[in-house]
């Protein structure tokens, strides 16, 4: 509270100055740049929120993960590393890593598509802004709305089945969200539909920051469109592609909304986050859920650390 009162005091001093009650020599602010507490006054609220909602949970989570707590009991029984052993030895818990591979693979499709459309639209194109807008728009749509749109798309006699019927391919119709062999592919495709636009706009932004003279010079030298891509575009968007790749790894581990709303995690579509939520809030196994969350956090941290090593910070800066 001392900090706040000091600000008030400084304000009072300021008014006095304006009133000209103090001689000009005393104008050099006494409490001004000199008072060491000022930055902490401005940082107090942000730091409290940061600690309470980010660091405290991380610390607590580590602690919970070593207990068999149910989330309600007054006492938390210490069980050591039992929860971690369970995650790695019980196949039904470990399966979620396998599911995230679908989303990881899908993110490559997503980046390839984004790169293709970004390259194509970086050259003069009719209706360019319209195309850009349509391709980007899905990224802005509410996740629940997207999930419901695609439940309708994949449901029996839904949009996809009707398209197949239109082309006389009824024999391909099936339970797109029920069949354990393909439901994860259906869900991962939905994810591509949703997120491709962001990659696309980021890539497009990077490509457009390349000076136009480079292309003109290349064209004068007789470079083809493909050569322009290979030698001008590709090198200059490497950093943003590297960044997207790393985000794809952590993103594919943190998938939640689409499978949760579309299938509820049934038929082998449960992801890491769905299972953690189930564990902690439905089955009241906060200890086990925390252990899973800690593992996820560690993976994400390791991946990010690798990214910092591979893609140096300053290169990612596009501006």
């Amino acid at each position, binding site marked *: 509270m001392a900090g706040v009162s000091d600000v008030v005091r400084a304000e009072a001093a300021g008014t006095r100055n304006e009133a000209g009650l103090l001689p000009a020599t005393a104008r050099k*602010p006494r409490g001004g740049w000199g008072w060491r507490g000022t930055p902490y006054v*401005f940082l107090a609220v942000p730091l409290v929120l940061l600690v309470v909602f980010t660091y405290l949970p991380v610390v607590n989570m580590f602690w919970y993960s070593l207990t068999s707590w149910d989330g309600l009991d007054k006492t938390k029984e210490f069980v050591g590393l039992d929860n971690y052993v369970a995650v790695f030895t019980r196949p039904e818990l470990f399966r979620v890593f396998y599911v995230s591979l679908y989303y990881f693979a899908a993110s490559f499709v997503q980046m390839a598509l984004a790169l293709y459309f970004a390259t194509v639209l970086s050259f003069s194109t009719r209706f360019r802004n319209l195309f850009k807008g349509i391709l980007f728009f899905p990224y802005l749509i509410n996740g629940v709305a997207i999930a*419901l749109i695609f439940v309708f798309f994949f449901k029996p006699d839904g949009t996809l089945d009707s398209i197949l019927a239109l082309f006389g391919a009824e024999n391909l119709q099936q339970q797109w969200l029920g069949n354990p062999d393909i439901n994860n592919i259906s869900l991962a495709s939905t994810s591509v539909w949703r997120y491709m636009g962001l990659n696309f706009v980021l890539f497009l932004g990077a490509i457009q920051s390349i000076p136009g003279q480079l292309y003109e010079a290349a064209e004068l030298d007789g470079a083809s469109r493909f050569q322009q891509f290979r030698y001008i575009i590709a090198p200059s968007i490497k950093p943003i592609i590297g960044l997207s790749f790393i985000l794809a790894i952590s993103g594919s581990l943190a998938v939640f909304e689409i499978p949760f709303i579309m299938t509820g995690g049934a038929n082998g579509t449960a992801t890491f986050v769905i299972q953690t939520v189930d564990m902690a809030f439905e089955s009241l196994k906060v200890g086990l859920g925390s252990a899973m969350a800690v593992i996820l956090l560690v993976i994400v941290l390791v991946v990010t650390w690798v990214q910092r090593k591979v893609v140096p910070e300053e290169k990612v800066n596009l501006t």
Partner: protein
Amino acid sequence: MSYVAKTTKYATLVLACLVTLLPISVIVMASLKTNQEFYNTGPFDAPGNWLNLENYVTAFTRGKMVQGFANTAFILLFSVVGTILIGTMAAYAIDRFEFRLKKTVIALFLLATLVPGVTTQVATFQIVNNLGLYNTRWAAIALFMGTDIVSIYIFVQFLRGIPKELDEAATLDGANHLTIYRTIILPLLKPAIATVVIIKGIAVYNEFYTPFLYMPGRDLGVISTSLFRFKGPFGGQWEVIAAGVIIVLIPTLLAFLALQKYIYNGFTSGATK
């Protein structure tokens, strides 16, 4: 460009637009059909009456969408204003002052960006619960304000471009730091604030996980959770669910059409942290 290349280019673009728009278009058509009509027609059959808005009325009234919009607006207002105040204050302190713990503070903020929010919910839940915020709209507001480091980053970047001489001159005139923050820094940060309002606004409007976990109360539905709850009572009534989807989609579409340029810029500056 050769004729073939040009054809391929436009063909793929048109195909991509079809893939994007088709799933949405069939929902628009479904939302205009009567229940009977929905069951007797395929997804591509046009509705008999293009002005049949009955499902929209049902979605709004029985689906509690009005309440959803009200709760979302409430949360949106407080968390966006809070994020701006917190973000600009933090950015002002970090960019304009030298202090002993500066490096530590910056490291704390940067390290926090590495912790994905979804991973820590198990423990965050207990904290929100202990603070007595569980099942109130303040749970979502506190969480939206407390963990937005991207906004702080955007503000710091922008502040760097504002010459320090401006605040120094004000200090010589006897202004204190609060006055400088209020009368010089905040107004000059307007473009950055606009960016944060857009990014944050869209993020809050679309957020599902936080309200789903922290605000299960019947009257506390936001846009996302209200729409999610359509799955139960309207399970067999796809035409009503479709209307709900379109109701949620329209504000996004309007915002996008009105603010296109700012939205593109906002996401490019927000994502390349």
